[in-house]
């Protein structure tokens, strides 16, 4: 086993253990904090793929902002009491069925897709390449996404100011 495989398995274990903790913690705050190792593990996987820019963005947005936001919201609600919440309800069989179907679907896709060879050497400075592809070939998708985010921002402000 070479170093890359070793690193991959270590990171994958981190993601999986963290993910399991997120799902199985009966304490909401524990579940939210367990997102941190999970998302950091994913960032590590991006490092293995030489995607430094995506790594930094992953940590900045997901770990530094979204997890904090989730924690902040939990702390403002009853979830912050630290009391254990009920984890199962009567819909367990249904959920099992959906999960099983998803596993089968992913497995089939995984086997069917012809995994092509790597797209050649990476540009030496990839943030620049990312920026150029945002503003040239994918400019429409990029602008539409920003509009959606702007709309949700305005919506959030409107909802928050309703008391006037």
């Amino acid at each position: 086993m070479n170093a890359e495989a070793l690193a991959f398995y270590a990171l994958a274990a981190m993601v999986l253990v963290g993910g399991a903790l997120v799902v199985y913690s009966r304490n909401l705050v524990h579940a939210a904090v367990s997102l941190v190792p999970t998302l950091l593990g994913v960032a590590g996987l991006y490092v293995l793929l030489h995607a430094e820019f995506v790594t930094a963005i992953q940590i900045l947005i997901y770990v530094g902002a979204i997890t904090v936001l989730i924690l902040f919201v939990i702390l403002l609600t009853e979830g912050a009491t630290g009391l254990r919440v009920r984890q199962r309800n009567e819909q367990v069989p249904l959920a099992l069925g959906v999960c099983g179907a998803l596993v089968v679907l992913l497995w089939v896709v995984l086997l069917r897709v012809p995994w092509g060879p790597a797209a050649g050497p990476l540009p030496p400075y990839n943030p620049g390449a990312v920026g150029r592809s945002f503003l040239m070939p994918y400019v429409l998708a990029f602008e539409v996404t920003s509009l959606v985010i702007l709309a949700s921002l305005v919506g959030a402000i409107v909802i928050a100011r309703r008391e006037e």
Partner: protein
Amino acid sequence: MGLGGFLGSVWQVELVRMVVLAAVVFTFLAVGGPLFLVLAERKISAWIQARVGPKHVGPHGLLQTVADTLKLLYKENIVPHRADVVLFSVAPVLVAVAALLDWVVIPFAPGWVVRDLNVGILYFAAVSSLTVIGIVTGGWASNNKYSLLGGLRSAAQMVSYELPLAFSLLLVATVTGTLSTVRIVEAQPYPAYLYPSVGVAAVVFLVAATAETNRIPFDLPEAEAELVAGYFSEYTPMRFALFQLGEYGSLLASSALFTTLFLGGWKGPFSLPWLGPVGNGLVWFLLKTYAVVFFLMWVRWTYPRFRIDQLLGLSWKVLLPVSMVNLLVAGGLVVIVR
């Protein structure tokens, strides 16, 4: 060489190098950070308030912090009743580690950087945002209303001030055309027509960095008068010391990044021939960094604390619009001149 180079070379050698560098940086952080800065803070505050400050331990009180650290090591670790033990223990470590990770991309002198990442300043912003998770979980896990409020305030404050900070970084990236800290230092001094924009970005950065490190006038998360030290009021000896390490470590790291981005990093107005390029670089870099630290301490002991609404208003209503306009102006200038 970016992060990817890590896998290219012999990895056992890289691993050893990594551990050694972590030890070296951590030692620098612990000695140059809390151990020295706590003393400096006490001496400077004493000087500003016309007192004497620590005087009795060692010559002129120089060993006061060493004695305090030893005392902290001997005392008992207390976990409050019904606190969340795991998160309570993890939180201070997270804060200290986040402060340590900042130093990976700081260039001390030509060639003296742990790793010159392609995405250097973005990396800095990313890992310094990990601090807030430690503070929030620490505040919650203490099972104390003041700590919880401190943690909540900290989350609101740090998320708000990350935006103006990011805009300042973005402006530097636009002007220099790179995210690597080493190449940003090499690109300085900035051309004269960009001085106003870079100046505004520097001021915004300094204000936002003060808020990110939770220092007066932005120390709402700990505000002794209302929150009894906030998120760390339940923490005893070594865990409290780790929070201090994190706080002073990120203060030092922010000052070092300010030096790197706006004060020319390791470059100096003149060089002393007998020191060589690395020696000169180190001297200038440390001089500038500690000058910024001194400025922040001066501010801390001069101004009173903001209210939380003033604090958030300052970020969203003043700093953010100013930095957006500033970025537009700087971007326009760069495009026109090129």
